[in-house]
C-alpha cells in the first residue's frame, strides 16, 4: 500500500467523438445554460423568451442530426459505438432523437401560453424538458444497459418533477407522486432485470451481450429469461403498456397539459427506444422466448386502452387511455422483431405530432386552472372556436386511423410489420381495438361538432379559451405534421427504413 501512487498507471480514457454526440449534448448544454442565464439575470426575461430559447435549442439539436445522418448513410461512415462502447451511433438513435427534439419544441410552445395563463414561473420547466429529452436521447443511443438506465432516470425524474410542477393544483402534485412511485417501482424492476442479465451474460454492454449470446448457447437460461422479463416489465411501465398502465390515466390527467403532451410523446418514444434496442435487437436470438410476452402486452394494451377509454367522460383521461392503446399498436411493431423497427419509428414520429397536437388543444380548452376537461366542456367548440375544433378533429381522426393522416399510415406500418411475421391474430386484435377506439374519438368529435355550446353562444365566445401564439404555432405544426406524414409519407418511411438499430462493439 505504500507505493500506491507510484503504481497508478495513467488511464487511457476512451476517445470521445463530440460531434457524434452533438444532438444529446445540445439538449444538455442548452438546459444547463438556460438555468445559468436565468440565475444571473436579475430582471425577468420575458416568459416567451424561455420558450423561444427551448425551441431554438430543440431545433439546433434537430439540425445537428442532419449532418450526422449524412455521415451515417455515407459509405465510409456507418454505425459505430462511441465513448468506450457506451453509445450506439446509428440511424435509429438519430431518428428518435430528432423525433424527441420535435416533441420538445412543440411541448415548449404549448407550455409558454400555459405558464402565462396559470401564472406560473417556469424557466425550470423548460430546463427540465430539455434535460429530459437529453435523457431520452441517451436512452435511444444507449449501447450499455447502465447507460440506458441512467438515461431513463434522467428522463423520468425530470418527468416526475414536471408532472408535479403546477404548484397550485394538488392534482398535479398527486400525479407527480403517483408517477414517481410507480415509475421508481418500474425502474427497480428494470434494474433487477439488468442485474440478472449481467449475471447471465457477464456484461452490461449490449454489444458484449450480443456477442456472448451469439457465441454461447446457454444450457440454463432461466436467469437470462428472467432478466429479459423484468426488463419488459420495467420498460412496459414506462411506455404505459397494460397491465403496467395503471398510473397512466391519473398521471396524464393530473399533470399540466403541456407536460402530458411531453410525456405522451417524448417519454413514450424514449421508452420504446430502449425496448426496441434491448429486447428486439440485442436479444434477437431469444425472440422465440420474448415474443409471446410482448404479444400479451400488446394485446392487453390494445384492448384495455380502447375499452377503458370508452367509459371516460374526461377528455384528458380518455386521451390517456388512448395513449395506452397506441402503446399497444407500437408494441405490435415491437412484437414483430427487427422487421418492425421501422414501423415503430414511423409510428412514434407520427404519434408525436398527433398527441402533442391533441394535448395542445386540451391545454387551450382546459382554461385557467387546467380543469375544464370534461366532455361537456367541448360542447359546441366548433361554433365557438372552429379552427381549434378543426385541428382537434384532425388529431382525433388521425389517432383513429383515418386515411391521409399520419395515424393511418402508422397503423398500417405496424400491421404490415405484424403481417410480415404472419402474426395475423395480433393484427386483427389491433384493428378491432382501432374500431373500438374510434368510438371514443368520435365522442369528442360529436361533442365538438354536433352538440350545441353549453351556455349562451355569445357568452361562450367571450369566455372561450385564448389561444396564445406559441400554442397556435404548435398546433399548426402539429396539423401540418399529422397531415403531411399522412399525405406525403414517402420520405419519412424511407428515413424510418434507413434508421436501423445496430449494436456495434466498442472496437469500431
Amino acid at each position, binding site marked *: *500500500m*505504500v507505493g*500506491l*501512487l507510484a503504481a497508478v498507471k495513467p488511464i487511457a480514457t476512451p476517445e470521445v467523438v463530440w460531434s457524434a454526440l452533438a444532438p444529446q449534448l445540445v439538449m444538455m448544454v442548452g438546459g444547463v445554460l438556460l438555468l445559468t442565464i436565468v*440565475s*444571473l439575470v*436579475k430582471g425577468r426575461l420575458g416568459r416567451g423568451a424561455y420558450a423561444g430559447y427551448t425551441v431554438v435549442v430543440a431545433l439546433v439539436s434537430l439540425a445537428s442530426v442532419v449532418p450526422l445522418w449524412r455521415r451515417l448513410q455515407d459509405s465510409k461512415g456507418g454505425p459505430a459505438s462511441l465513448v468506450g462502447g457506451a453509445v450506439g451511433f446509428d440511424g435509429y438513435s438519430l431518428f428518435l432523437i430528432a423525433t424527441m427534439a420535435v416533441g420538445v419544441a412543440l411541448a415548449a410552445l404549448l407550455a409558454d401560453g400555459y405558464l402565462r395563463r396559470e401564472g406560473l414561473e417556469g424557466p425550470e420547466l423548460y430546463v427540465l424538458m430539455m434535460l429530459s429529452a437529453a435523457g431520452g436521447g441517451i436512452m435511444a443511443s444507449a449501447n450499455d444497459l447502465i447507460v440506458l438506465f441512467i438515461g431513463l432516470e434522467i428522463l423520468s425524474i425530470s418527468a416526475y418533477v414536471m408532472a408535479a410542477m403546477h404548484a397550485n393544483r394538488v392534482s398535479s402534485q398527486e400525479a407527480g407522486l403517483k408517477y414517481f412511485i410507480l415509475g421508481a417501482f418500474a425502474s427497480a424492476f428494470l434494474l433487477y432485470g439488468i442485474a440478472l442479465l449481467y449475471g447471465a451474460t457477464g456484461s452490461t454492454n449490449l454489444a458484449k451481450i450480443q456477442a456472448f449470446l451469439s457465441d454461447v448457447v446457454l444450457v440454463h437460461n432461466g436467469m437470462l429469461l428472467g432478466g429479459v422479463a423484468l426488463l419488459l416489465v420495467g420498460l412496459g411501465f414506462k411506455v404505459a403498456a397494460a397491465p403496467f398502465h395503471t398510473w397512466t390515466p391519473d398521471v396524464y390527467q393530473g399533470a399540466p397539459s403541456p407536460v402530458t403532451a411531453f410525456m405522451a410523446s417524448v417519454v413514450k418514444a424514449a421508452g420504446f427506444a430502449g425496448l426496441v434496442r434491448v429486447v428486439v435487437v440485442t436479444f434477437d436470438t431469444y425472440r422465440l422466448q420474448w415474443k409471446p410476452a410482448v404479444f400479451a402486452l400488446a394485446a392487453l394494451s390494445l384492448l384495455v386502452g380502447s375499452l377503458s377509454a370508452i367509459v371516460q367522460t374526461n377528455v384528458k383521461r380518455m386521451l390517456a387511455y388512448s395513449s395506452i392503446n397506441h402503446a399497444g399498436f407500437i408494441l405490435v411493431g415491437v412484437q414483430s422483431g427487427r422487421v418492425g423497427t421501422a414501423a415503430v419509428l414511423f409510428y412514434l414520429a407520427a404519434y408525436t405530432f398527433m398527441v402533442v397536437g391533441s394535448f395542445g388543444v386540451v391545454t387551450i380548452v382546459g382554461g385557467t386552472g387546467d380543469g375544464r376537461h370534461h366532455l361537456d366542456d367541448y360542447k359546441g367548440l366548433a361554433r365557438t372556436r372552429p379552427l381549434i375544433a378543426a385541428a382537434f378533429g384532425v388529431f382525433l381522426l388521425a389517432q383513429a386511423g383515418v386515411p391521409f393522416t399520419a395515424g393511418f399510415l402508422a397503423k398500417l406500418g405496424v400491421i404490415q410489420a405484424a403481417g410480415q411475421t404472419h402474426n395475423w391474430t395480433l393484427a386483427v386484435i389491433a384493428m378491432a381495438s382501432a374500431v373500438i377506439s374510434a368510438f371514443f374519438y368520435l365522442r369528442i368529435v360529436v361533442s365538438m361538432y354536433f352538440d350545441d355550446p353549453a351556455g349562451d353562444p355569445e357568452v361562450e365566445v367571450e369566455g372561450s379559451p385564448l389561444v396564445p401564439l406559441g400554442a397556435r404555432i404548435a398546433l399548426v405544426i402539429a396539423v401540418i405534421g399529422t397531415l403531411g406524414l399522412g399525405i406525403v409519407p414517402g420520405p419519412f418511411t424511407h428515413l424510418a427504413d434507413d434508421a436501423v438499430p445496430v449494436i456495434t462493439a466498442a472496437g469500431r
Partner: protein
Amino acid sequence: MILALDPLLSGDVGWWPEVTIVVIKVVLAFVVLLLAVMAMVWFERKVHADMTNRIGPNLAGPFGIFQTLADGVKFFFKEDLMPNRADPLVFRLAPYLSLVPAFITFTVIPLGGRFDGKNAGEITLPGFQKVTLLQVADPHIGILLVLAMSSVAVYGILLAGWSSGSKYPLLGSVRATAQMISYEAAIGLAVLAVLLRTGSLSTNAIVDHQAGWNWNLWTTLFVPFVVFLIAITAEMNRPPFDLVEAEQELVGGFHTEYSSIRFALFFLSEFMNVVTMSAIIVTLFFGGPSGPSFGPAWLRAILPTAWFLGKLLVFLFLFVSFRATLPRLRYDQLMDLGWKLLIPLALGWFLLLVALRVAADSDWNPFATGAALIAGLAGGGLLLRKAVRTSHARRAAEAEAGVTL
C-alpha cells in the same frame, strides 16, 4: 479476507492469537479514548473558564481534574426519566447510535509508530516479534469509514430529538440534520484534496505519505484544511455552530428530555467526537504521528505518539477557543456559509489541485496554468456571487410584492 486490515493478521499468527490481539487492541483503544474524553471534558471546562476570566472546576482532585469522574458518577446515579410521549425503543437507542460512530472513527487513526518513509507506522510487538500497527484497524478505505461514520452520527441526534416527543428536541434535531448533511459535502470535498495528494484512502498510507514534513497542510495549499476545520466544527455541532442545542432558543435541543446516563452518553459522544475529529485533522493534514525522531530507543518508540498527542492538543485547544471566542451564527448564516462559501470553495480548490496535477503530468507551464485556473475560479466565483445576489434581489422583490404563503 475481511480481517486483512493489519499486517499482523496477514502473517501466520493462528486463529486464537488473531482474535486475542484484535480484542486487546479494541479494548485498549476504547479505554484510551474514554480517558482522553475525560481529560478533554476537564480540559475544555478549564480552558474555557480561563479564557472567560473564570476558574473552572477546581474542587474534585487537583485542579479539579476528577471533575469529569465526579460528573459521571452523578449522572450514573441520577434518576432516568422518559417522557410519556417518547418512543421508548428509539429513545433508548439514540444515545448509542450517537456514541458508536464516534468510537469507530477512532479505530482507524494511527496513534503512533514510526513514519519516516521507510516503515509505514509498523511497530514490532515486544513479546511476539510480530509487526503491527498502532491503530485498531487499517482498512484500505479508512477515510471512507470516517466519512461513513460521520454521516451515521446524524442518527443519534436525529432520533434523540424525534423520539423525545417534544417540540424543542425535534426542532433541534431537524436543525442538526440539515446542518450535518450540508457540511458533510464540504468535508468530503476537502478530504478529496488530501486524497488527490496521497492516492490512497488508507489512513496509514495518508500519514505515511506525509512523513518528513511533507504535510498535506501545505501540499494542498491550506485551503482544504481551513474548509475541513470549519466544516468539521459544524459537523460536530460545536460552537459557533451549536444551533442544535442553542440553549437560549431550544433549551438544549435534541437532548432536552434526556437525563442521567443517557444524557451522559450524548455528552460523552460529543467530546469523543471532538477528540476523534481533532485526530482526523492531525492525520489528514498534519502528518499524524510523524515527526522528528531522536534520543534513545525508548524515546524513539514513544516519540511518534507524543507528536501525535501534541498536535492533537493544539486542535483541542483550538476547538475550545472557538467556543470561548465566537458568537453563535444565525441559522441562515450557517447554511449560507456551508452552501455558498465552503462547498464552492472546496470544490473550486479541488479542481485547482486536479488541474495543477494534470499540468504537472503533462508538463504544462505551471504558472500559466495556475493563472488560467485562478482566473477561471475567480470567474466561477463571481458568477456564483452574481447568482446569489440575483436570487436575493428577487426574493426581496417578491416579499415587497406581498407574495406570501
